[in-house]
């Protein structure tokens, strides 16, 4: 064995160890799609009334559903492309880590809507999202950790500025945050090579 081969072996081992614990099916395109949807959602309120709960629910409901769909399709396609199981061990760990934050967001959404205080929700959603993203940081790509931190920092600012700024901040933080996530994932994806499959096969 020569030193170059030893270095390659160490690289393969590191990749294998990351692969066992990291959720790798999150795609850059899903992040970019979620960012574009959030930005578009915020821009729609130039024409719609954010104080109207129906408008608010319809826009952000569609943004959430669209982002979820983009993630699901992206994950399925990536799984098919790489031959990896979609409902894998890391995927179960990520869903388990996200579940409490998602449940909290759902409860707060119902609570604030029922009291006509829905314009406070963007700050609350950022808090829940940030907590959820950080909870997955042991399994998810590093970029998710940065997005989680951004959300946790932006949440108190959004809440402090109040309802009149909540839509704009939702568009900026969720929109640009996800676009940034997509770009970082894209860079990571470009750097990765199919060496691992060849080495193990």
């Amino acid at each position, binding site marked *: 064995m020569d*030193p170059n081969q*030893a270095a390659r072996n160490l690289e*393969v081992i590191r990749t*294998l160890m990351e*692969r*066992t614990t990291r959720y790798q099916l999150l795609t850059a395109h899903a992040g970019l799609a979620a960012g574009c949807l959030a930005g578009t959602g915020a821009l729609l309120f130039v024409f719609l009334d954010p104080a109207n709960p129906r408008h608010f629910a319809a826009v952000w409901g569609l943004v959430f559903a669209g982002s979820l769909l983009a993630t699901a399709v992206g994950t399925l396609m990536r799984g098919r492309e790489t*031959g990896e199981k979609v409902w894998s061990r890391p995927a179960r760990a990520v869903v388990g880590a996200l579940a409490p934050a998602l449940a909290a967001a759902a409860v707060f959404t119902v609570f604030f809507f029922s009291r006509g205080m829905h314009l406070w929700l963007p700050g609350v959603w950022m808090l829940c999202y940030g907590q959820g993203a950080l909870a997955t940081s042991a399994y998810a790509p590093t970029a998710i950790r940065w997005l989680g931190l951004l959300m946790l920092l932006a949440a108190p600012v959004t809440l402090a500025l109040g309802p009149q700024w909540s839509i704009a901040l939702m568009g900026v933080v969720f929109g640009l945050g996800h676009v940034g996530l997509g770009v970082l994932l894209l860079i990571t994806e470009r750097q990765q090579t199919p060496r691992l499959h060849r080495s*193990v096969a």
Partner: protein
Amino acid sequence: VDEFKRLVDELDPLLHEPGRMAIVSALAAGGRMTFTDLRDALTMTDGNLSIHLQKLEKKGYVAIDKQFVGRRPQTRCQLTRAGRTAFTRYLDHLEAIVRQGRAQERA
């Protein structure tokens, strides 16, 4: 050159095989894993994984236990203390080979 040869000779031959190296790396990171999770993570066939696991178990590097979850049998694997020590030693050896090679290049 002698030091380099010694390092290469001392590499654990059981762990030096790519398939077994992959299994041990995955178990070192993932802790206890089911046979299915391990197979999916490493994209290995059942037969291939099974043979490698048997060799690692025989050497005492991996502990395998079988249990029933509901009505389904489940095989779980984890590194033993000896396996973790051997893996750490293997990594140390690889790093030493890389260092030795760089030192030779500089000389």
